[in-house]
């Protein structure tokens, strides 16, 4: 500010600026109407999002509630109108929940639109993670250990969850799933995730979980699968603003499972029985 203007402004303030009221809110036109909290989940048949009005009071009911929530799939143009409900949260308070029955498609872009009666609107867009291209190498023996490499191409970020699932059974019992966390055993390099599956190590874990002893019969390994949870880019900065004309978070979760079976000689080496029908 130039000094002359400063002096003029000062004089104005001294003689006219006796107002001491203050408005704590920067917007009174409702241009930031909604807070959104939710995400799409490829593993769920029903999608949920909580929406509430941003208000100028602590009272959660003080704002003007939304009247319409819908999503539109970018590639197909298909629009789904969500239904609303009031749910009781774990602390006894209530939340305004919208839900819709559909399964989010991997690789699809969805736009969420929230509107209320006076026309105020907030939108958010998310890309559902794409299922990676998977290559499962042949299991081999290295230094007396059985290992297998699984490569996932087209990965943009570290997975939120990565685990090996061993589906095993003993005798005539129903198969159970034994999950071995691989979160710290894989990393994304140049868009590819390479997972070195340590089958021998995992076999010991399976034995522990099954409570095997020297006299126990060998369990049957039906299949091995890699369970993967991928998050949309919004999860990298969950505190950031992801909603246009609003606040909050709107993202997507892709949950994928890649299943394969081990050949008989590997199963025998790992002291597993072959499942029926495996040749």
């Amino acid at each position, binding site marked *: 500010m130039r000094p002359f203007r*400063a002096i003029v402004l000062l004089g104005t303030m001294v003689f006219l600026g006796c107002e001491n009221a203050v408005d704590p809110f920067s917007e009174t036109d409702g241009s930031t109407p909604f807070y959104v909290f939710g995400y799409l989940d490829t593993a769920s048949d029903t999608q949920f999002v909580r929406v509430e009005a941003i208000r100028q009071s602590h009272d959660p009911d003080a704002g003007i509630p939304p009247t319409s929530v819908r999503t539109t799939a970018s590639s197909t143009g298909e629009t789904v109108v969500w239904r609303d409900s009031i*749910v009781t*949260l774990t602390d006894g308070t209530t939340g305004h929940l919208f839900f819709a029955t559909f399964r989010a498609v991997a690789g699809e872009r969805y736009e969420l639109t929230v509107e209320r009666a006076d026309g105020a609107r907030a939108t958010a867009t998310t890309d559902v993670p794409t299922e990676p291209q998977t290559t499962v190498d042949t299991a081999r023996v290295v230094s007396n250990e059985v290992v297998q490499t699984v490569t996932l191409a087209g990965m943009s970020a570290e997975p939120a969850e990565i685990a090996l699932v061993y589906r095993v059974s003993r005798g005539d019992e129903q198969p159970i799933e034994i999950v071995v966390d691989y979160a710290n055993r894989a990393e994304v390099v140049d868009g590819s995730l390479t997972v070195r599956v340590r089958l021998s190590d995992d076999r010991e874990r399976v034995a522990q979980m099954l409570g095997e002893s020297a006299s126990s019969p060998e369990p049957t390994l039906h299949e091995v699968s890699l369970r993967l949870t991928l*998050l949309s880019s919004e999860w990298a900065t969950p505190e950031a*603003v992801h909603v246009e004309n609003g*606040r909050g*978070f709107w993202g997507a979760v892709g949950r994928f499972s890649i299943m394969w079976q081990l050949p008989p000689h590997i199963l025998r080496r790992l002291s597993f029985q072959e499942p029926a029908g495996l040749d």
Partner: protein
Amino acid sequence: MSRVSTCPGGRFVDLVSRFPRSLALVLALLLAPEVDAQTATIRGFVRDESDGQGLQGVNVILSQEGSDAFLGSATDVDGLYAISRVPAGTWVLRATFIGYEAYVDTIALAAGEIRTHNFSLVPDEAQLEEVVVEAESETAGAASVSAGLQTIRPSDIEVIPSPDVSADLVNYLVTLPGVVATGDRGGQLFVRGGEPTQNLVLIDGMLLYQPFHLVGFYSAFPSDVIASTDVYAGGFGARYGGHLSSVIDVSARSGNKRRFAGAVSVAPFVSAGLLEGPLWKDRLSFIASYRKSLIEEGASKLIDQSLPFDFDDQFGKLHLNLSQNSQLSVTGIRTFDRGVIGTEAESAVSDPNEQVTWTNHAIGGRYILLPASLPLSAELLVSASTVRNTFGAPEEPSRSSRARQYNFAANLTHFVGPVNLGWGLFLRSSDLSSNLGGTYQNLDLDRDFVTEAGFYGEPEFRLPNGLRIQPGLRLDAFPSKGRTFIEPRLRTSWELGRHRLNTAWGIYHQEVVGLNDRRDAGDVFTAWTTSPLHEVPQAIHYIAGYNFRPSDGLDLSIEGFYKTLSNLSVSRWSAFPRFTTELQPADGTVIGFDVRAELEAGPFYGFASYGYADVTYRAQQEEIQYWFGQLEQEYSPPHDRTHQVNALAMLELFDFALSVRWQFGSGLPFSEALGFDTFVLLAGPTDVLHTPGQTRVLYGEPYEGRLPTYHRLDVSLDRRFDIGEHVGLTAQVSLINTYDRRNLFYLDLYTLRRVDQLPLIPAVGLKLEFNR
């Protein structure tokens, strides 16, 4: 620091008359200071005959019969003067000071002699001889700023109206145009755009971390214990370092060496007592002061509002004249503050979970020596300073911080004719510990030890044409951090009759910093740590000023300043609930100017000042773009007061002293809110159906709003009654915020509470003084 005066009509005695030759000679003399055995040096302490304390600003002049040439010096805060390069012979020494009888003596100096000549001046109230008090006129007085430096005397402080008959340094500091206070609570002073923790506050060379009390009228420095205060609003010389913004260097009185004296005062805000006297007449004296707030018991009842503030301070000093050539003093100080800043006036009780406390302790020794065989003065300082700061419930504070510094410094000044060659060494060790309770999420503060060692050199060249140049260089090393800073400094002053031009420039670093969460004005908790983001904050100051004295009694000045700031640590503005955040780096600039006028005419005294400042911070962090759409966020921090006006008028009539002070400040920045929502922290896929949220205030862009303007009128009327020969009673009636302006202290966006500053407060104070 002694100065050589150039009185009107006199001719500076020097061996050369032209500048280049003078400079060459000065350099030669500096390189071989002991070469000239044909001249002598005279130095000593000038004291007040009535109390034996050193007198600052006394003109000491040597002259010879039949010559209009003279040599001269003015005493420093210890009463020390020194005149070197005095040709051997018989000289008349004359010392003058307003309000004292002139001292005249004949001195015979032999070639090569270094003479220590101490003497006292006798007070003479009736004698107001016309004298030039150069040291005082240069930087003392409301309009006599010199490249950021202003000297504040107790008499300056005492004219400022306050709700207490005992004056306090902070009441004067907040009248300075570049100083922004948070109001009448908080104890935060921002000097020319700097943060409070960037101010170096010293008393007798000891560091005080948080010297300003919670209630804005009080600091650790009652005027009764102050001899003099140098305030550098910027551009300070190489002697000072480790802080980015300013220096407030308080010199305490040494106590009466002739008789006992004291004072007791009571007022609705504070009760105070002071005692001083000789323990060994003319050799050893003491001075002790104690103050205790009465706000909860007094002022709160007076205005029927909750004022949950408590503070006290204790000060003590022993001063010993060891010999003709040496002095030793030991100073100790303690301050304590407790309060809840954000309590609404109407609230009956305050939330103990928001209670802030801080306690300062400092003790130190100061030894001054004039070596018998060398033309120099040496000052040795040893001190220890501690501050402890807590926030939260008293028995279990949620945040706490402690800082401790051990300091050793040696400051020497060689007197070499027109050159005072100052240099010094320092060694400091800091012990810093904090428990922040998650306040700064990306900080893992626990305990840190820092050792600092360095050197500075600061020659002051006084050239015959009125030009004074003081280049400086400070070398500051932190071995444990692997860092060394080289900080050049420069101060100049050019006297041209009634005109004076001043400039200052310097580079400054601050390794030990104080962290405050400025998102909340009610939160004054300070955590002390080493540079938290691993880059040391730096400032570069540029100052240029002009002083003009159109007539005796009238002083005018204008001074511009520009600062660049880098590697600051500021709270990251994010969507997370308040009180937890990350720190982010920021840079900044400060630009502004001050205009001051001071008038003294008969019984009237007054000054007025206007300050303009524009403080801009630029914070860069990846996350900023997610909120505000750009990588860099530029904003005005919450202490950016653009316009500030101060005016004071005092009239002394019929034993009454009436003081009126008006202050005005344009609105401070604050962050407006968009509204409230119910926030759910997402660390990963979360149960949308059942997870509850937390009510959150949604902030707009940082500090885009401005609070209302601030203005206040304070009035006080004093009358002194003499009760016998040795006892006096001063009665004061004061009105603070006379027209009951509802000034906003801060707005709590989370609760939408408005907290106002103090309303109209009428107060009566009494002060009983004695001396025997």
